[in-house]
């Protein structure tokens, strides 16, 4: 599904390397988790994959189903099936949440040569999905993320994911800011989307989320590289001992 090879990225504005050779392969239907210290480059990886401005790829490649995505516009990547649930969802005053979602759904359908979804069908589907995430009608009407609490913003991200049905989902700290119940809601939302044809890359600091969304593979990122890859146990080890041993081990290697 997603294949990243020796990816090097620096900031466009200054000579600062952030990703220093990331290798990662995610098979269809799998859930991978990335953990790692603050500032290690996890969000940068998600931004570069989704096409945010301000980064320059100096080496390496990233493909989705064998197609190079790094040269694509962000909207083309989205239409190709890539989705990023933001660590910090953006507020857009003046654009209604519902309008936003409908525009997005139809833009993607159009890009894929499908017919637009009728207003009635859209309404039916979104009501149903919003309900399972406990997003009320008021939140659907309000401007995108404006005045939403931290947890509401994250639930709104998952609603978007559920509506857009991407095949490669990247979740950047979707658990931060969620209370225990919301964590369960969001995880259930994600698990409901798990499917043999859909993969997940879950960025998190905490094992707690991984109790709900069980990963197949866990990676540790430090200083712009994946320094260790393992099974679910690796996350438990981090939870227990922190990163010191892993960093020392990587440094020694």
């Amino acid at each position, binding site marked *: 599904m997603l294949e990243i090879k020796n990816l090097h990225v620096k900031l466009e504005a200054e000579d600062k390397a952030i990703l220093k050779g990331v290798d990662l392969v995610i098979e269809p239907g799998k859930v991978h988790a990335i953990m790692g210290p603050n500032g290690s480059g996890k969000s940068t990886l998600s931004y570069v994959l*989704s*096409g*945010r*401005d301000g980064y320059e790829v100096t080496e390496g490649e990233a493909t989705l189903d064998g197609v190079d995505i790094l040269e694509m*516009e*962000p*909207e083309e*990547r*989205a*239409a190709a099936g890539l*989705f*990023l649930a*933001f660590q910090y*969802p*953006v*507020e*857009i*005053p*003046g*654009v209604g949440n519902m*309008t*936003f979602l409908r*525009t*997005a*759904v139809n*833009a*993607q359908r159009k*890009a894929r040569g499908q017919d637009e979804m009728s207003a009635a069908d859209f309404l039916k589907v979104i009501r149903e999905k919003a309900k399972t995430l406990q997003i009320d009608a008021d939140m659907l009407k309000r*401007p995108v993320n404006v005045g939403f609490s931290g947890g509401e913003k994250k639930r709104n991200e998952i609603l*978007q994911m559920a509506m*857009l049905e991407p095949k490669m989902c990247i979740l950047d700290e979707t658990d931060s800011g969620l209370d225990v119940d919301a964590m369960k809601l969001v995880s259930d939302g994600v698990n409901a989307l798990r499917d043999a044809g859909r993969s997940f890359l879950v960025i998190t600091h905490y094992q707690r989320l991984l109790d709900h969304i069980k990963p197949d593979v866990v990676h540790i990122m430090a200083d712009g590289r994946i320094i260790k890859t393992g099974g679910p146990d690796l996350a438990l080890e981090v939870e227990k001992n922190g990163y010191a041993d892993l960093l020392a081990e990587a440094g020694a290697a």
Partner: protein
Amino acid sequence: MAKAELKQDATEARIATLDMPKGGKWIAAARADALARLRAMGLPARRDEYWRYTRPDTLTQADAPAAALFDGKERPVFDSVDRLRIVFVDGVFDAASSDDLTMSGVEIERLESASGADIHWAKDLYGVLEARGQKPVDRPLAVLNSAFATDGVLIRVTGKAAKPVSLIYTHASESSDAILHHVVKLEKGAELTLLENGPAAARFNKVLEVEVADGARFHHIRAQGRDHERRAATHVFARLGTESQFKSFTLTVNGVLTRNEAVIELTGDDAVAHIAGAAMGDGAFHHDDTVFITHDAVNCESRQVFKKVLRNGAVGVFQGKILVKEGAQKTDGYQISQSLLLDGDSQFLAKPELEIYADDVACSHGSTSGAIDMDALYYLRSRGVPRKEATDLLVLSFLAEAVDEIEDEGLREEIVSRLTGWLDRRGG
């Protein structure tokens, strides 16, 4: 030559090109009074403080600069609205294209026919509200209008108008120079929606005087647009009685020069005045909103919401003032003027002012100028919305606060479809 003399000469030169229309006693007196006032004050000149951001010369010079006719095939705005249509072609009433001027609760008369009378209800308003609006700042183009307007409508509303009155200004001659003057009087508790649209003329000078009596409601929605080279100087003078409502929205797209002045006086307690504008300019476009709101009664509310989207060197101007007179306690005054600059060539000049002589008031004003929010754009695109569509969505959201001032949903839709049309015609 001294500045004052130059000004006087320019004013006389302009007056010499104009013919004062014939009329009965009341209108002849009003016109003579206006002419005297115009001679005393002189036409605006570049150095005048009130014309600091907008060059008045093409508005005051003897001949109107030519303006090519727009050849777009789009459906005219308000087309789907059930309304009473009054059509002016280059500022001349066109009976054949207009509806019959009768509607229950509303009396409509052409200025030209009413002016034959010796006495008329409009006597107390024509040039009168305009003259009240000359303090503390001169508005000479409005005075010129009172003296020389060749046509217009006088509308007296005694009840709830069954449908909107729609003034349609067609532009047919590339060199037309039109001067129209309308008077609207809403009697106690009356209600009217007035629509205005169309490019009007190569150069258009228009005055609208509105008296809103106690408990009356006046809605005004205007779409100025189409012809790129057209010029316009418009004034609205409004006086509001107790518990009355005045709501005005203007959309401006295209137009090499537009100056819209609004002078609103809240003279009865608990009155509400909202004035809003959305302007979209691309290239040779200079758009000036100049607003003066006077609170002279207790517990009144005023709102000014002006938004401009500018690109390719377009210029936006906002001069807005809230004056709260002594004793106008519990005034709630709000003013916002914002521009969205789609590139580095465009410019927004704003002069917001507050002058307050009462102690128990809540007034706020703000003015900003900014570019498209790149984070919002990326967020939209990451969800699959193409750049052009995402930008348009952000432009519409920027304008929303102004457009939302239009209460009637159907009319709001008409305006929004104009906005999207403008955006669609432009590349990304």
